[in-house]
């Protein structure tokens, strides 16, 4: 691999953490005016590479070359000054501040000694327009839905006019509409000569916007394709996972028995009209919609995280009283929320702790004491079953790669004996190999008579796994499709605001 024509080159990068070698002698280059995909399984080292690029981590060995000059950025400020912008996998925003203040964080416009509020607002508005978001710059960031926060994060990085922009799974919390908008932004950047590094687990995206691709496995460089023209999907997947992967969804029809989950006239914040639906035992029900369609809000009502204003939830015919996640879990309904950092993981506790948190309840001795044998075996079994890549079960979960954190949270819920599982964006940030395993697990759950609700913004995922699909739009149920009649076109059309030309 030569550095010629490359704006950005990684030269023999190595990064070691206690007990883990996250990157091992990785070298490849990224050309100006191209979009370069960075792929690999969860824990392969993609985010670590980006953090070295941004100066957040310092490599144990090797360097980053910009314009032929070798750098080891010792701080993020240095990297920013050198023209590098990184959109991290986890959002880095200040919830209590306004959108405008977040967008220009670290480079507030001044007028003499003072903050130039007018310039702040103008520039923020410009950035929001750049990403096509219709948000007030004065809105409090913490009030925005996840997808909009993601778009703010993107706008924030773009505002610096960097010549190298790296995206770490930017679409994992975006739905179709924003994703398309983001692609347009990326194409514009590319056309203006920016070098773009793009981390994703979604094959479609790679082929939609990437010109080149590099695959990492276990921290090592596997291959760099300077052009994707002759590279097949299967061969890419194979270089990532190290094996052939056919039929990701592996859909099998199952018998459905009525009386699983029944939701009647549920009303509450985020819903414009009461919602009713039911899921049979053994059935997988998909929820699709655009950002802010109200799916997450609905699920929070179903599982008791938010008290409903009216309506009823029944599980196997029994009404679910109480209105707290605790009662829901005890009745056999578990909920895996979409915002893993805020509502899923307990970052400063171990992987094992995070996995056992809920299910240990029924394993206590004398109602109080931990069953240490069970704690160990369950954690180990779940880690193995989901392929969580962790140095040990006692590693802090916050140190795991994003996808591995997600797997550990799923493991928490798969440790439970459940009747109903509600999964909100369960495969966010999960690699394709693991995805297919998780789909298989979901099928197994359903086959064992569990009712499964899966909320997803990935159309192929919903179409691939669900027996039935409900589409939500602007706080309302817009349509319902049995698997047989659901096509990408019909489902997407139902999700778009009324009057949108398709």
């Amino acid at each position, binding site marked *: 691999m030569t550095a010629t024509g490359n704006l950005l080159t990684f030269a023999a990068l190595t990064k070691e953490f206690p007990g883990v070698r996250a990157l091992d002698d990785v070298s490849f280059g990224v050309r100006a005016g191209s979009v370069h995909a960075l792929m690999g399984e969860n824990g392969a080292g993609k985010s670590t590479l980006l953090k070295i690029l*941004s100066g*957040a981590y310092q490599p144990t060995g090797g360097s980053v070359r910009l314009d032929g000059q070798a750098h080891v950025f010792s*701080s*993020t*400020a240095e990297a*920013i*000054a050198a023209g590098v912008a990184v959109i*991290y996998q986890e959002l*880095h*925003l*200040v*919830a*209590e*501040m306004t959108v405008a*203040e977040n967008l220009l*964080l*670290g*480079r*507030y416009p*001044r007028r003499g*000694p*003072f*903050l130039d*509020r007018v310039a702040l607002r103008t520039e923020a508005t410009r950035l929001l327009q750049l990403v096509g978001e219709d948000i007030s710059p004065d809105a409090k960031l913490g*009030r925005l839905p996840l997808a909009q926060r993601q778009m703010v994060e993107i706008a*924030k990085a773009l505002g610096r006019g960097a010549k190298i922009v790296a995206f770490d799974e930017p679409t994992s919390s975006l739905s179709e509409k924003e994703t398309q908008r983001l692609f347009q932004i990326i194409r514009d950047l590319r056309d203006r000569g920016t070098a773009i590094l793009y981390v994703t687990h979604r094959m479609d995206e790679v082929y939609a916007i990437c010109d080149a691709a590099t695959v990492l496995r276990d921290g090592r460089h596997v291959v760099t394709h300077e052009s994707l023209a002759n590279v097949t999907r299967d061969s890419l997947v194979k270089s990532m996972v190290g094996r052939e992967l056919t039929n990701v969804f592996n859909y099998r029809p199952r018998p459905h028995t009525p009386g699983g989950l029944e939701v009647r006239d549920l009303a*509450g*914040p*985020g819903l414009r009209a009461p919602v009713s639906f039911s899921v049979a035992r053994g059935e997988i029900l998909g929820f699709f919609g655009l950002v802010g369609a109200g799916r997450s809000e609905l699920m929070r009502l179903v599982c008791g*995280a*938010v*008290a409903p204003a009216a309506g009823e939830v029944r599980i196997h015919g029994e009404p679910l009283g109480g209105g707290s996640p605790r009662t829901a879990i005890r009745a056999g309904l578990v909920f895996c929320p979409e915002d893993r950092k805020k509502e899923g993981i307990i970052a400063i506790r171990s992987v094992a702790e995070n996995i056992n948190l809920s299910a240990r309840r029924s394993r206590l001795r004398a109602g109080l004491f931990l069953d240490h044998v069970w704690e160990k075996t369950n954690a180990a079994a779940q880690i193995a079953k989901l392929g969580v890549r962790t140095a040990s079960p006692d590693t802090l979960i916050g140190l795991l790669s994003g996808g591995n954190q997600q797997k550990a949270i799923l493991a928490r819920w798969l440790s439970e004996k459940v009747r109903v599982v509600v999964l909100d964006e369960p495969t966010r940030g999960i690699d394709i190999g693991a995805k297919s395993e998780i789909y298989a697990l979901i099928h197994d759950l359903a086959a064992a008579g569990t009712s499964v609700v899966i909320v997803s913004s990935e159309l192929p995922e919903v179409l691939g796994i669900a027996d039935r699909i409900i589409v939500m739009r602007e706080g309302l149920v817009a349509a319902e499709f049995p698997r047989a009649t659901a096509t990408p076109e019909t489902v997407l059309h139902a999700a778009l605001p009324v009057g949108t030309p398709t």
Partner: protein
Amino acid sequence: MSANKISQPSPFARLWDSAGMLVVLAVLFLICALFVDNFLTVVNLRGLALAVATIGMVACTMMFCLAAGDFDLSVGSVVAFAGVLGATVMNRTGSVAAGVAAALGAGALTGFANGLFVARLGINALITTLASMQIVRGLGFIASDGRAIGIRTDAFFALGNTAWLGVPVPVWLTIACFTVFGVLLNLTAFGRNALAIGGNKEAAHLAGVAVTRIKITIFTLQGLIAAFAGLVLAARMTSGQPNTSQGLELEVISACVLGGVSLSGGVARIGAVIAGVLIMGIVQNAMNLLNIPPFYQYVARGVILLGAVMLDRLKQRT
């Protein structure tokens, strides 16, 4: 997690939300004006304003500390030490300027050291400032041999004991602090960066905000202002007292928190801090005017403190 309304909040709700504690303050003031004899006299209001001068000044910088996600327990000791040091130096040299410079320098140095330990070495702020609280208090006792050091330089008393437009100088100085730090918080990048650090240190750092430098600056300012407040106090009392202002740190922090400054960082408003300081001052003043026996004052203070936050909390239900 409570329900989010999509509808725009009404103007009243917005005012209440942004100024909850100011409303509580106004109500409290009104009640006292109506029902507490002598409350609304010039003499009493002047006494009240003087009584909150020290807390008020120190609260300005404490607000910044809290905004950035830290706190400083050493302020009471710095107030006392600055008074003692200033008095000693003035008595020795006969120069007010020398005394003031020594005291301010010592305060800033203490703050700087706190900042270094917290921001650069990553030592917990509780431990760091608890340690400096003890060290500085000890130094104050050592320097004064435990005695109040009377100041013999008349020129210095002016700082504490003259009035301008009928308002005592220490009160003007407190108002000046509120103004300067209010401006610093709301109208400068420094203020915004402090809030960003407290709100999400990681995010601020990744965005290139000079986290360490800003934190050290804040602690240094805190030490400086505490020393300044100590000098003003010494001027008012015409002596530097080594055991003064014990427990000031908790009073200042609670005034800030009462005013809605978050203990976990990222949220601060100068108006609310002023409200917090005044509420605590008015409560104490009214109890004195009402001749409430001291033992009952403890109970009353606690109950009113709780009452004020609960009233403020109501806004989240409306």
